[in-house]
Structure formats: structure tokens, C-alpha cells
């Protein structure tokens, strides 16, 4: 019997002592994993071990091969569009924290159309809509109304908003939403509680179950991720990969993707609890690719240009360009954003970089059929 939820699935790892597991992993173990066609969850964890960093070049080579075999020399482009930043949550690491004193905005439908027009000029045919979580300013109805406007400008619309009920995800599908992104932020429940002291997002289980509700509701694409820096990254990386594996196995008709965001400075002024170095991020991305050869891997502008240019060659399948993380940023410019971005390049500049690296930029990968 498959587990009823990821919460249940995850319970089998309750007794897992990560430090002890990693201590026992040997070079031979890593080499054995790297020649296997299909690796298990525990093999994936071996690839996340400190000792696996000695074999990073082999991991990167395999990751590149697997990615090219499955996705070719192509790279999807996307950009986020923040339409509201009012928020009822108190996430200690986020610039939109309810207590933060920033200029809040909630775009009108006319303003959304204007933003859409500006973004559409870059040639992008898909859009990712983001909001804070505010019952008053960005209820489900407001988001779905925005989707209706955006569909006039884009072939495909995805959302990265707060957790919906399954009924609301069904409504989103009916409104023409193709995909959703939901970062659990932190898979460790105890730490999650300290990071999310109030607001609806404080409910760990409800958020953990959101990607599965989206799968059940019929979304085409579901993207999960942990915000790296909030907890020991190896544990978070493992539970993110297993989450994607669980969903991919159970909901075969849904395209499951993973993001690997590293914490960036923001107006909340929160210092990461665990530092994730470049080498760690490379290890995480390449291990994910070897574990889940068909999963999309999304990379944001939290990473700096040089890092992004390298990462597209070893596992990434989707990358952002022309990014602003402020509501209305595509019209009014970028202040009071959710966090500081590291790569200011435009969509055209990203396309240029991709061509130079031997990749076909993909502006359109789906057309909503509703």
C-alpha cells in the first residue's frame, strides 16, 4: 500500500541518524552508486554525503549526461511576477514578513495587464505568478482573476502562492493554471515551527500536503523545494528529493520539478542557520539529477551569474531571467522585494548566454488547452 501522504511516507525515516549514516559511507560506495542505472533513495543519500564531494566531477559528468539525454540541449526560460506582497505570515527569514515595514502593494487588474504586457515583450510565453499570503488582499478569487488577465498574454500560467485547499486547486485548474510551486522551506518540523511562528503558514502539515493536493486536483506541473540555509542542508536535500520521488511515483501524469533555492539577504535581516557553499549546491543538484533523471530542476536568480552559467551545464532544465521580486517590479522597478537577487540579467541576455553555452532557450513549452 502506498503511503497516504508525504507526512506518512516521511515517517519511515524518523529514526534515521544522518551523521551516523554519512560516517559509514565509503569511496567505494559512491563509485558503486555512480555506475548503477537507477539509484535508490539510500543511494541518493550516499551521494549527498560529505565523502561524495571527492567524486563531484564524476557526479557532474553523469548529471550532465543524464540531463542531456532526457532534456536535450534545451533550457526553459521563465520569469516571476509578484502581484501582491501583503502577508499574514511571520516567516522570520522573509522580506514580506507581516511585521516588516515595507511599502506593500496589491496590483489592480489593470496594473497586472501592464506588467504582463512588459513581460510578454521579452518573448516569454509562460508566467509564474506570486503573492504573499493575505486573506484580505490576495484571496483565491483575486489570484484566479489575475490568471484570467494573464492568459491573454501568456500561453501558460503557473502560481507560486500560499497553500490552497484541494477544491481551490481544482478551481485553479479550471481557470487555466498549469503549474504550481510550493516550497516547504524546511522539512524539519521542529525547526519549521520556530521559523514560522504565526499566520496560516505555521501549519507544517497543511503546507507539506499542498503539492499532493495540487497533483490530485490535476495540475500539470508541481515544483517542490526547501529553502537552503534554514536547516542542515543535507537533511533538507534528502527530504526534498524523496518528496519529489514520492509524488512522481504516485502521480505519474504530473511533471514533478525541484528547485534548490539558497537563502539570500532580505529586509527581515535573518542570518542563515547553516551555510550552503557553492560546492554543496553543485553536489545537491547533481545528486538530484542522478536520483531523478526525468525531474525538472529550476534555478532562480538567488544564484550569481557565474554560478548559474556553470549550473546550466550540469543538471538544470529551467532558469529565470528579467527577474524582479517586488510587486509591480516589471513596471515600476525593484524596491522592497522579497529578497535580493544576484543575477540582474534580462531574458534576452539569458538567451544569449544559453546560445553561447550551446543551449536552445525555450520560451514556450506548453499551451493551456482550457
Amino acid at each position, binding site marked *: 500500500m502506498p503511503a497516504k501522504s508525504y507526512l506518512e511516507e516521511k515517517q519511515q525515516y524518523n529514526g534515521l541518524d544522518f551523521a551516523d549514516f554519512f560516517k559509514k559511507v565509503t569511496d567505494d560506495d559512491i563509485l558503486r552508486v555512480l555506475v548503477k542505472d537507477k539509484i535508490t533513495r539510500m543511494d541518493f543519500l550516499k551521494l549527498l554525503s560529505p565523502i561524495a564531494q571527492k567524486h563531484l566531477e564524476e557526479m557532474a559528468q553523469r548529471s550532465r549526461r543524464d540531463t542531456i539525454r532526457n532534456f536535450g540541449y*534545451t533550457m526553459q526560460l521563465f520569469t516571476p511576477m509578484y502581484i501582491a506582497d501583503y502577508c499574514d505570515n511571520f516567516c522570520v527569514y522573509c522580506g514580506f514578513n507581516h511585521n516588516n515595514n515595507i511599502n506593500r502593494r496589491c496590483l489592480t487588474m489593470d496594473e497586472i495587464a501592464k506588467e504582463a504586457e512588459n513581460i510578454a515583450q521579452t518573448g516569454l510565453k509562460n508566467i509564474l505568478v506570486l503573492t504573499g499570503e493575505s486573506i484580505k488582499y490576495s484571496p483565491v478569487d483575486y489570484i484566479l482573476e489575475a490568471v484570467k488577465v494573464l492568459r491573454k498574454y501568456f500561453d501558460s500560467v503557473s502560481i507560486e502562492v500560499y497553500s490552497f485547499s484541494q477544491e481551490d486547486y481544482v478551481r485553479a485548474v479550471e481557470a487555466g493554471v498549469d503549474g504550481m510551486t510550493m516550497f516547504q522551506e524546511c522539512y524539519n518540523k521542529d525547526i519549521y515551527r520556530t521559523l514560522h511562528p504565526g499566520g496560516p503558514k505555521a501549519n507544517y502539515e497543511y503546507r507539506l500536503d499542498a503539492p499532493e493536493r495540487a497533483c490530485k486536483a490535476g495540475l500539470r506541473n508541481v515544483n517542490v523545494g526547501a529553502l537552503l540555509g534554514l536547516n542542515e542542508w543535507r537533511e533538507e536535500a534528502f527530504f526534498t528529493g524523496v518528496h519529489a520521488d514520492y509524488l512522481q511515483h504516485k502521480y505519474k501524469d504530473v511533471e514533478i520539478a525541484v528547485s534548490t533555492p539558497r537563502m539570500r539577504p532580505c529586509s527581515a535581516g535573518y542570518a542563515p542557520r547553516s551555510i550552503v557553499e557553492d560546492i554543496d549546491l553543485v553536489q545537491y543538484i547533481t545528486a538530484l539529477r542522478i536520483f531523478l533523471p526525468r525531474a525538472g530542476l529550476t534555478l532562480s536568480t538567488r544564484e550569481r551569474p557565474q554560478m548559474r552559467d556553470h549550473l546550466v551545464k550540469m543538471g538544470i532544465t529551467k532558469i529565470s531571467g528579467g527577474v524582479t521580486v517586488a510587486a509591480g517590479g516589471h513596471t515600476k522597478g525593484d524596491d522592497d522585494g522579497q529578497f535580493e537577487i544576484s543575477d540582474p540579467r534580462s531574458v534576452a541576455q539569458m538567451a544569449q548566454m544559453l546560445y553561447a553555452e550551446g543551449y536552445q532557450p525555450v520560451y514556450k513549452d506548453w*499551451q493551456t488547452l482550457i
Partner: protein
Amino acid sequence: MINKLEADSLKIGKETLKSRLFIGTGKFSNNKKMPEIIHAGNASVVTVALRRVDQKSTEENILDNIPKDVILMPNTSGARTAKEAIRIAHLAKAMGCGDWIKIEVISDNRYLLPDNQETLLATEALVKEGFTVLPYISPELMTAKRLEDAGAAAVMPFAAPIGSNRGLRTKELVQILIDEIDVPIIVDAGIGRPSEAAECMEMGAAAVLVNTAVATAGNPLKMAEAFSLAVAAGRTAFLAGTGRVLSAGASASSPLTGFLRKEEA
């Protein structure tokens, strides 16, 4: 005397094809390289995922890079149900992509294996509407038979999962389709090397479709040419009739049927 090539040409729907190599377009590093690669492979049919077609784009419309002398076969990649595949076929027609359609219905994102039942439903509906339908399937005789009965112009079983480059893993099943199905069998997906394409053709496949093997080759142009040669070689071998290869097992020292001749005497 009839030109031998003409006599052997493959006919699908209303079209007589100039070669037996089909090329997929989804994995190339630059769409602008497509015309050269298609010509290097002397491909007769080129398949394009409609999900990627962007007619409003002046620079990035893949259709602008498909030569006029090949047959355009849009595919329904991304469809998870027959209904979605039918919808995509309609969009393709509305975009002026002709009436060929490769049905791809996939509701498994781990291996990208096709859903034979939904594929059959979509084929039945689209044939009735006048499309030239080429369904992509898991090689399975009864499905292929029903597709043939429904009016599919060809049947396209995979050699191995898409993008796996693993070669002709489904050989026994594909051979059964070649032997039992009267419409052309086109081996699609999984072929990693020209020698494997040649093997498919030697077995009697009508054509092969490749994408990953060419797109991810060190030199895609040369690899397209290699596939073209391999497909032609395999086809010629099939027509020549491969030599008899005895299966394992010793032959009895005295003839088993000798007694028949003794009785005759």
C-alpha cells in the same frame, strides 16, 4: 524498367516518402541548425512538438526552420489524455501544420511510456476527422491491430524509452508487429546508434524516427548522415533477404526425413 528506388518507396497516407528516416526536433541546441541536419539525414518527415511552436515569435518559431521539402508531422507531446491529444491536433491544424499528426499520449513522467488506451481513442477520433494519424505506442500486438482497424496510417512502437539511447530492447515485440500488422511499422524512440536503426530496417520496419541520438551526438550533422546511410543499408539488406542463420542446436547425423525418400524408392 521501373526505378528500383521508386518501386520501394514508402507510402503513408497520400504521401510517397523520399526516404525512410524521420527526425525529431525537441533536443537540438539551436533550432537554426535544423535545416542543415534534416538535409544531412535526408529525412523525409520531421516531427515538431506543438507545445513548443510559437507562431507569434519572429525569431524563435521552430516552424520557420523546417524545410519545405519535408513532411511536417506535428506531435501531441504533453497530452495526458485522448481529449488533450485531440485538442492539440486541432490546434495544429488551425496553425496550418497540415493534416499529419503523431499521437503521443503520455501519463507517465518517469519513463515517458505511452498510454496505449488513450492513444487508441485519440486515433479513432482523429482518423474520422480526416487526419493522417501516426500513433506512438508501447509495442503490443492487440493495440497495434486496433489502431490499424481504426485507420492509423502507420504504427510507431518504441525501441526503448524516449531519450534512453538504449537500442532495440523491444525487438521481439516489434518483430511481431512487423509480421502481423499491415500498415507501416515505424520504430520510434530509444534508438541510440545507426547500427540499431539498420537492425530495425533489416527486420522489416518501414522507417525509423530519431531525435536524441542525433541531437546529442558530438557532431549532429555527421550523425544525421550516418543514420541516413544506416537506414538505407538496413532497408537494402531487408530487400536483399538476409542469409539464413540457423538457430542453435545440432543437426542429427542421419537425416530425419530420409525414410520418406526410401519409401519412394
